[in-house]
């Protein structure tokens, strides 16, 4: 090799290195320069749709979708604001990465705002009078939430976030359906002559009879009473926890970090999940008995959530803990043939419900400190919290899927078909099914069961009088006749079967979790999850008892009591104290 060639090689190697390095810094640069839009965009027109096109990066911890917002919601936002939304999904790990990188994009949803504020990653909405200028609807409809956030996190002067699901009023904040069931296959339950169900455990015998009535699903597969999944479990089994939710107890207290305890919605009562008489333990026993009777899907442990959805859709499952599980089965065809799930409560039931909360929930909406378009982001957020925005995000574009008929909001002919996903949306609205084109950020703003001041009816179209009176299918009709109520919510309110959690407000932010408690909770949670499933699938009563003992011993050995003490102390100082008054 000549000298010259050597030099060429060396030079080439160095250039290659620079390419490597610049590629590294290049990608880092494009991550931190979050705005895809090419204009610096400080100009804000009075007509928002006349502004230049920009793309906003929206990180949502709740999104089940990544990429550009599709469909009719994209068209609404584009037409009104000339904004495109780039949805970034991802759980806690993705949020951590973005926090560590120091940039949360333009809008972020359901992140840990306390740390983000400490890290200086959130925009102060009071800076330059942003909120006053561009957020009139936010101030009008979410004023208390803004104020509360300012007191808790902004020292009373800055506003960094607004809560989700904001509303005011009495009673449950849910729409026509509650958050927790239980739902049964109404057709089979009717065939059995609607036997009375007093306690949770009474479902087992009824479901066994239902299984005998319908041993095979639509596609000829075996039918089970229950089909569970483990991939959503945090420190305990999500499906077992639901048994507590039927009795008015929910995980945590809605304010503090308190996942190992369950608290009563409307009373100052709490129980540790491992307490001998806790509803969680009762739930484990319930599913263990179900498994002994051959009612529990043996794949529960190994399958993932989408497998469960498929089983519901095929009719392989008879009982649903959560009403939304039944959407796949309750199609128009099946319902008009008289088959479908409906709410079948038990006598003791007091279903957990979150009441209307003017301070909002903890899945906050925030604006990233590094956004280049604070004004336009604020305009867009303002619309999301305005009656017009909430209404259209819920029921679709006005004039297409719904309109005002005789002074009342009504789904159009097309709208009825669209919301049941039996027709595609028109091509100029991005095509696809109605549900595919909805808001992919997947977080609420105002509670949709609130009354829209512009129409005089709730935002949620399933609560419109026109919708409720629109030729009910045989299942709904027979359910209404049997229960003497129009909707599930109507029934639980009339019959006092609901425990409504009142809103809680504190000027103090929630207590931070010390590092050793955090670690102990992780270890304990792992044990509880593992043994919960083992107990549900235990071979006999002896094994169940010994597994239970092993779970409690192990969890206590790993620090269960310390974690509970931390959580209960916080609860009794805050939410618990407020409930006692």
């Amino acid at each position, binding site marked *: 090799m000549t*000298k010259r060639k*050597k*030099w060429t*090689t*060396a030079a080439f*190697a*160095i250039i*290659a*290195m620079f390419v*490597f390095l610049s590629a590294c810094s290049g990608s880092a640069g494009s991550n931190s320069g979050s705005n895809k839009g090419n204009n610096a965009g400080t100009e804000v027109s009075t007509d928002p749709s006349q502004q230049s096109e920009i793309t906003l990066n929206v990180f949502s911890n709740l999104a089940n979708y990544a990429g550009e917002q599709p469909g009719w919601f994209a068209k609404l936002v584009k037409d009104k604001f000339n904004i495109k939304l780039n949805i970034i999904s991802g759980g*806690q*790990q993705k*949020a*951590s*990465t973005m*926090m*560590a990188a*120091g940039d949360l994009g333009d809008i972020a949803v359901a992140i840990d705002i306390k*740390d*983000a504020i*400490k*890290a200086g*990653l959130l925009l102060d909405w009071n800076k330059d009078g942003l909120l006053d200028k561009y957020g009139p609807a936010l101030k009008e409809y979410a004023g208390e939430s803004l104020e509360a956030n300012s007191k808790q996190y902004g020292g009373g002067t800055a506003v960094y976030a607004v809560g989700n699901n904001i509303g005011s009023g009495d009673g449950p904040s849910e729409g026509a359906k509650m958050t927790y069931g239980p739902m049964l296959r109404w057709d089979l339950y009717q065939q059995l002559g609607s036997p009375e169900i007093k306690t949770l455990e009474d479902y087992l015998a009824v479901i066994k009879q239902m299984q005998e009535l319908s041993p095979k699903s639509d596609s000829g*597969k*075996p039918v089970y009473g229950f089909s569970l999944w*483990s991939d959503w479990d945090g420190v305990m089994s999500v499906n077992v926890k639901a048994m507590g939710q039927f009795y008015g107890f929910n995980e945590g207290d809605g304010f503090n970090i308190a996942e190992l305890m369950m608290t009563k919605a409307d009373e100052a009562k709490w129980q540790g999940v491992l307490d001998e008489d806790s509803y969680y333990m009762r739930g484990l026993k319930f599913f263990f008995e179900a498994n002994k009777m051959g009612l529990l*899907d*043996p*794949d529960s*442990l*190994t*399958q993932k959530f989408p*497998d469960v959805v498929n*089983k519901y859709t095929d009719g*392989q499952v008879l009982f649903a803990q959560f009403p939304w599980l039944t959407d796949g089965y309750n199609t128009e065809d099946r319902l008009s043939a008289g088959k479908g799930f409906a709410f079948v409560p038990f006598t003791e039931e007091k279903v957990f419900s979150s009441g209307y909360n003017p301070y909002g929930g903890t899945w906050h909406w925030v604006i990233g400190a590094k956004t280049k378009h604070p004004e336009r982001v604020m305009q867009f957020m303002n619309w999301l919290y305005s009656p017009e925005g909430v209404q259209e995000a819920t029921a679709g574009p006005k004039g297409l899927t719904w309109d005002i008929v005789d002074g009342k909001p009504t789904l159009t002919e097309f709208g009825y078909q669209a919301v049941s996903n039996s027709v595609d949306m028109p091509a100029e609205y991005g095509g696809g099914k109605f549900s595919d084109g909805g808001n992919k950020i997947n977080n609420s703003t105002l509670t949709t069961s609130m009354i829209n001041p512009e129409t005089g009816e709730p935002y949620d179209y399933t609560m419109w009088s026109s919708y409720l009176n629109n030729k009910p299918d045989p299942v709904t009709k027979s359910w209404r006749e049997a229960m003497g109520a129009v909707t599930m919510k109507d029934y639980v309110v009339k019959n006092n079967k609901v425990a409504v959690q009142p809103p809680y407000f504190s000027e103090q932010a929630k207590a931070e979790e010390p*590092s*050793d408690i*955090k*670690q102990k*909770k*992780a*270890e304990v949670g*792992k044990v509880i*999850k*593992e*043994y*919960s*499933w*083992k107990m549900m*699938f235990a071979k006999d009563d002896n094994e169940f008892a010994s597994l239970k003992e092993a779970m409690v011993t*192990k969890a206590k*050995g*790993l620090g269960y009591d310390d974690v509970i003490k931390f959580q209960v102390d916080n609860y009794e100082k805050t939410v618990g104290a407020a409930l006692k008054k």
Partner: protein
Amino acid sequence: MGAKLNGQAYTTAAVKQFRFKEKYTLFLMALPFLVLVFLFAYLPLYGWIYAFYDYRPGIPLSQTEFVGLQWFTSLVSNPYQMEEVLRVLRNTFAISTLGILTSVLPVIFAIFLMEIKSPSFKKIVQTLTTLPNFISWVLVYSFAFMLFSVDNGFLNNLLMNMGLIERPLNILASDNHTWLSMTLWGVWKGLGWGAILYIAAITGIDPELYEAARVDGAGRFRLMWHVTVPGIMPTFFVLLILGIAGFINNGFEQYFVFSNAMNMSKIEVLDLYVYNVGVVNNNFGFATAVSILKSIVSLILLFAANSLSKLVRGEGVI
């Protein structure tokens, strides 16, 4: 070296000058790679500092609580915790040992594959066995679920239809032979891929050796045993020593996708444990502390394996 060959024609000074230049050149040529090694292998060591803090993403270390050795001591803080760590280490070592034991399989496979005379058949076998390496574990699991699920799984349907079993078997939710089945999945996925290096090594063996052996009257199996095997031994030992160094890092994905409550106590290897306790709960300090311990153990294992190799074979790789 060039300078030596033409030594007579140069003065000593000229030789020195040339040597200086040559050194310079060689250094420059190596520089980019040194920089890369520094960037990707040494710079990240700075991150070890997080093991001593209660780090929360986004907040600078200066404002983060210093916890000293808390994450390290928490591993052995009480008998129950120690039992957990021991269980995890037991799983890690058992699965890794099985992995090392099965690392001879690709060698055997490569040797026999090279003995196949029909080139097209050889290609087909090699492609089919290499392919699984490119399937992600997530897909492997959904495939396993299709095969072995209780409700409508292929195997259960087959056995039930043949009348061999009365109740479907729940193979995925069982803690029988977890270590072995995990190893088998690993072998299925990695066999063809692992054989590639050995095939390359076999191709590199001097054909004259085979001819000489044949002249000496060696048959097919004697050729394999006395020529091929010694020929690829160096490759095998390099990979074995690297494998031993990676003893404690036996991966995460495979165990993560296959884990469930029933097999958790047997399948939870160190990386999965760090994920379950550290990463899921945003406890990066703890995760870093465990990874420091892992690095130290890996270093010790590497040097131990290397000295063993020196002792046994008279040569090591470092």
